[in-house]
């Protein structure tokens, strides 16, 4: 019981410590609060944002975009990862191109995205999708390629092929690696969204962040930073929970 408590507390020492030090710095005006507002000021602004419903309004939109982008981009990355892990031809055909696209910054893609997808939701979702696609792709590929060849051979011996082979052996074997990719993709998802939400919108946490930056509202900037951090942690917890469910058999999870 006591030990369990301690284990729960330890991860929060750094975040809470940071806030305390920050309050200390602000109270003593070691850095001008005009540049970095005190935690309490931020809290007040946060309260107002929540109460006015504004925060929820922005978050709802961002979450929707994030989720749709994740589904589309993650799906494509997953399928490409599987395909390139299994077919040498597919790998040869697409991997070089994918690795090339992967390195193009979202910002640089913007003009093309507007031409192709316009300035509405399509463009934003496309950016998120392309952002999350790569970590999922790479890790799925890595997972598939690293499955013990003995398992696949054995599976074929027992008549598994096509979908059955995939479902029974390839997918579960690659799953630990795919989850690493997913957790990474969830991070990318939010980062891309802030860029995506600068395109012609007036709703979304990215919009909130960008306008705050443009209008130099440092309290709002900090709120969005914290929001992103919390989003990230929550997404990560969900992914971890899924991981634990899906990888019950894995040595790290057997108790």
């Amino acid at each position: 019981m006591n030990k369990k408590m301690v284990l729960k507390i330890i991860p929060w020492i750094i975040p809470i410590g940071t806030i305390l030090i920050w309050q200390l710095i602000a109270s003593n005006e070691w850095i001008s609060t005009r540049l970095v507002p005190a935690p309490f000021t931020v809290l007040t602004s946060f309260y107002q944002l929540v109460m006015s419903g504004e925060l929820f309004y922005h978050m709802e939109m961002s979450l929707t975009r994030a989720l749709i982008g994740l589904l589309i981009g993650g799906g494509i990355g997953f399928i490409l990862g599987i395909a390139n892990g299994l077919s040498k031809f597919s790998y040869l055909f697409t991997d070089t191109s994918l690795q090339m696209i992967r390195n193009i910054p979202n910002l640089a893609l913007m003009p093309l995205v507007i031409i192709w997808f316009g300035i509405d939701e399509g463009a934003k979702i496309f950016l998120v999708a392309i952002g999350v696609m790569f970590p999922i792709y790479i890790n799925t590929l890595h997972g598939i390629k690293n499955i013990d060849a003995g398992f696949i051979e054995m599976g074929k011996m027992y008549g598994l092929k096509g979908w059955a082979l995939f479902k029974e052996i390839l997918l579960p074997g690659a799953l630990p690696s795919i989850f690493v990719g997913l957790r990474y993709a969830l991070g990318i998802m939010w980062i891309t969204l802030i860029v995506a939400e600068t395109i012609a919108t007036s709703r979304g946490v990215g919009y909130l962040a960008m306008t705050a930056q443009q209008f130099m509202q440092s309290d709002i900037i900090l709120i969005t930073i914290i929001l992103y951090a919390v989003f990230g942690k929550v997404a990560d917890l969900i992914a971890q929970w899924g991981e634990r469910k899906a990888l019950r058999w894995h040595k790290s999870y057997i108790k």
Partner: protein
Amino acid sequence: GCGSSPNSDKTSGQNENGSSDKIIRMGYQKGNTINILKESGILEEKLKEKGYTVEWKEFVHGNAVVEGLVTKNIDFGHAADGAGIYAQAGNKPLVYVGADLPNPEGVGVLVHKDSGLTSIKDLKGKKIGVLQGGNHHYLAVLALEEAGISAEDVEWVYLNDAAQGRTAFETNKIDVLASYDPFLAGTEIDLETINLTEGKDYGYPNRTFYYTNEEFNQEHPELVELILAATDESDKWANENKPEVVKLVSKMLGIDEAIIAKAIERREYGVNKINEEIIAAQQKQADVYYELGLIPAKIDVAEYMPIN
């Protein structure tokens, strides 16, 4: 109360690197008047006798310049009118020390010639692309207001930069593009457009401003004077040598000379001191920004605009 001079480590560090080493850090954006000043070499010459050297820092947009000033990473910079308003609304310390001459023709509201839209009155319910809070956004609001259309009666599409606006406009993702030079001139030249605000200024001078950080203004008023004078000098030269300036700016921005020529022809370079008239215009703009919800509170711009 912006008179108190903070004594943080940061500041003293800056002092060591800055003033005591006699370096002046100038922030500029590509192609604006300080960039011309930089190319002219006038400032270096004037400062040499005082024992100062100049460090030029390039920024991608005006807000970044202001951010550099506010965080005391630069001493002097040049940015649009909106940037000063946001800084003050965000309670960031800053001083307006001078303004460019008015340039009302440098902003406009464009529609495609074949769009059937012929006057501001037609814009009700249309999609207008702007950079949120930019000078052209302000102009568009003023124009709409005069035509009896409220800002809520059109669909604002907030874009990230001029290029995005141009792309969205050209591919008809938006109906109307409010823009500013040289992008306004570029769009006018490249596409078949009508500028619905041409010839009217709606009382908006469209000035850009010279800003310093608080400390620099307090400790070195004579240097501020000197920089403004140098800028004015280079501006005068620019007015007299527009073809040369066109070449120079065109090369700096990588934009066609024809476009730059059009933009430069319709403006006059020169520096004004801050005066009551300038303050009044800026105050009106700040009030409209408050009404539009661009800034969270009413501000008194005079606090940041000392007259001397």
